[in-house]
């Protein structure tokens, strides 16, 4: 192996300084060899499920605090649940990134309305939002509800109102949605499952 003097000195010039400096009293302390501290040590672990595809992987959600009254739980990390027989602790790139879904800058935080013809959102209260929606619904239902068809058969349907139901919602809200929609006489509803 040929090493020119230039290379040799280059090695000395940069590479050497560490151990030489150490010799001269700049010795590193032992603390410098510690690994980054384990960030979940006292976090609270909650068992949940990935909301994406239908593998429905088990996930462990780690939150700050211990659920005591004054410690606000903040989600800091999500990883796979090793007990779940299907995913056994693994996740895909979507599930592994759930933290950034929970923390997305595009999460909605409060009800908003965009008035007819307007170019902007306006924040409103839950009560205002739901009252306005309920009034719209009632007015439309009372105006367009069909009690009997042209043959005089009782049909009790309301077809001018439509609803697309989430297939990301849990079974319980899913069932409740069906119950409410049928009670109103709705037929124009469908779910993402179709698509």
């Amino acid at each position: 192996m040929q090493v020119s003097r230039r290379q040799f000195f280059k090695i000395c010039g940069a590479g050497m300084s560490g151990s030489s400096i150490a010799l001269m009293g700049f010795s590193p302390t032992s603390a410098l060899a510690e690994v980054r501290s384990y960030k979940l040590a006292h976090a609270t672990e909650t068992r949940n499920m990935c909301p994406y595809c239908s593998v429905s992987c088990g996930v462990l959600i780690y939150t700050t605090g211990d659920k005591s009254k004054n410690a606000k739980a903040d989600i800091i990390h999500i990883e796979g649940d090793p007990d779940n027989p299907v995913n056994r602790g693994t996740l895909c790139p979507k599930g592994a990134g759930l933290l950034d879904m929970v923390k997305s800058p595009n999460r909605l935080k409060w009800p908003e309305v965009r008035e007819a013809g307007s170019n902007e959102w306006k924040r409103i209260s839950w009560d205002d939002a739901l009252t306005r929606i309920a009034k719209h619904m009632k007015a439309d239902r009372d105006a367009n509800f069909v009690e009997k068809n042209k043959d005089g058969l009782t049909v009790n349907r309301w077809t001018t109102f439509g609803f697309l139901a989430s297939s990301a919602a849990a079974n319980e809200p899913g069932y409740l949605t069906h119950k409410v929609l049928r009670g109103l006489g709705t037929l124009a509803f469908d779910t993402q499952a179709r698509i």
Partner: protein
Amino acid sequence: MTNHWVDIKNADLVMVMGGNAAEAHPCGFKWAIEAKKERKAKLIVVDPRFTRSAAVADYYAPVRAGSDIAFLGGVISYLLTNDKIHHEYVKNYTNAAYLINPDFKFDGGLFSGYNAEKRNYDKATWSYQLGKDGYAMLDETMQDPNCVFQLMKKHYSRYTPDMVSKVTGTPKESFLKVCEYIADTAAANKTMTILYALGWTQHSHGSQNIRTMAMIQLLLGNMGMAGGGINALRGHANVQGITDMCLFGASLPGYMGCPNEKEPDFKTYIEKRTPKMLRPNQMNYWQNYSKFFVSLMKSFYGNAATKENDYAYDWMPKIDGAYDTLALFDKMHQGKINGFVCQGWNPLASVSNKKKVGDALAKLKYLVVIDPLATDTSEFWKPHGEFNEVDPSKVPTEVFRLPANLFAEQTGSYTNSGRVIQWHWKAADGPGESKDDSEILATLFVKLRDMYAKDGGKLPDPILKMSWPYRNPNKPLPEELAMEINGKALGDVFDPKDKTKVIVKAGDQLASFAQMRDDGSTSGGNWLYCGMWSQAGNLTARRDNSDPSGLGQTLNWGFAWPANRRILYNRASCDMAGKPWDAKRTVIKWTGDKWAGNDVPDMRPNAAPDENVMPFIMTGEGVARLFAPGMADGPFPEHYEPFETPIDKNPFHPDNPKVTSNPAARVYKNDMEVFGKAKDFPYVCTTYRLVEHFHFWTKHSKLNAILQPEQFVEIGEELAKEKGIANGDKVKVRSNRGFIKAVAVVTKRIPTLMVDGKKVHTVGIPIHWGFKGVTKPGFITNTLTPYVGDANSQTPEFKAFLVNIEKI
């Protein structure tokens, strides 16, 4: 899935077609890898693209998008021609031996009974020959020319390897190689599993794609077996559960039907919905229909649903037509819908023909978006450069946007694709003022109820008298709802054999749908879910993952519907005498006095084999249907071209333009006119998902945006050369409905195929971009897609249409 995720590891052959399991369901796909590693299983992939599933496959065969029935029909033909079928299974467990009405015909691409004007079939001739006893007649030798077996053989005799290759573009030797892999599993102790998804459903003949494979699995004897089955890998974490809750206008929870105008009263409805027994001694499980329906009405209306008022049958709206998504937006487009709610749905991005959807939304008086995220739909009225060109002053729709909690912020149950219902627990509050879906809906309902109570209005009774037993009416707890779904005894429930014996005390939770009654003594919001929350508590929250059989059944983990059964039709995993076809993978067996083993038997537990109770307990004949009269577009699947076809004709029926595409698919007038032709749009386009993203959600997640930041389209090297497109160039892709612009990814992974003597190129487009998100903004891919759906399910044809492409 008839089977479940972990069961994939029990397969000898894993077939991935009509889907891309490695990318769309990576954590489930691990069990395919496990089968390879531990069972020496083979993995084969058939797809228009060399996907990341193909990257780890033993064999890959290309196929033209939209030609799956030609391919699979060819497989049926191969199996029959080469006698690679599981004879005993086919003879006993399918309707192969059943005699069909001699007037049934297939001619010129059409089955008997076609009505060209209505684009549908009168199915009168698609029927069994019935004997005097009312039962279906059989020819056990399967030689009668009118028996299903012979009709099927005749039907698929046209699907020769040469014909398959001509239609699909799959090289003949590749097709035959796939046939050989599949045929190996005809052995009684070999199984194939099929993993499919939207690659089969999103076609104008989507249901028939799946049926063709179901027929193959029946011919091979793979249904009911560990490592077998027909496995739909579904889209969302609870898409299975929401499907089971049947949030479809035409269905009621647990796959019951919404009453229609031909069912004016309760008695007629129950009669029409309860199927007749077609062979002696069968379970014909739907004969319990009335029990499930009455229990549902008791859950909906409680004491207001009485025997005297036919359990409030009149309050149930009578359906007068189609209300699927395509029908719904078409109605909206015609101005027939005034108010609309999108709950966790982003239809502007996810429904075909974005322009039509956007125009339709602009005709609403009010739109309510309930979502955790700022969706594209919620801003359909807002200009976002060239990605969403709109003038807000011309959109009179009032839009409300309500923040909903995400999974991490709520408690409840999800049902996975393998039908396992699992409970999850809230970890933290949602941001700002966001609320659970249940609370949003309940608060809205209570407001409406109060208005009707105070002011009256049209038919207030079903609103005022809806059973609403929740401790906090505005905030039903998931636990309360889960118990309601399960159902309970409203009065004492008696043993039908001994009317003095109480099997469930009044007030107790039901343990099984077998305890449901049609006399008003039980409630239950979804019969299929009965057992999830019995007196033993919330079984969906069980976390014992022990697996003594080693088959991955984990019967004490969560709760699977129905009845905690993990493999459907598992009686078919045994021969007629009740002995497993493969003792090493025993699912259940006849023990001499009962069925038992490593699963909940899909059979009356004491039905001795000599009683001849057949395994497909939901049908009136007890066997599976190779000939399926229930389908809208034919009892046997037939190849039809996509509505936009690169070859302008159906090579099976080149002289009959009426059957170029599915003659029974519904097409709306204005949509028919915007189908493109090959002369203007020469390339087959298919849309799909990437492993790095989830639909239109993860564009809001930075970690996923980093992985696939920018919209792109994929083309093969040959097309790229022809069009002068280099890797990384910006291109414009046009269909007859609009255009998108994106980066070109030029790849060897998209082959050019020879179809009907013509070179056919494919353009592939991942769907994940839009104008809202933390990815680079992109066009809505569904700007391009055609507004037509499958004849049975109305799932839009996203997977095969025509485009042109140019460099910009």
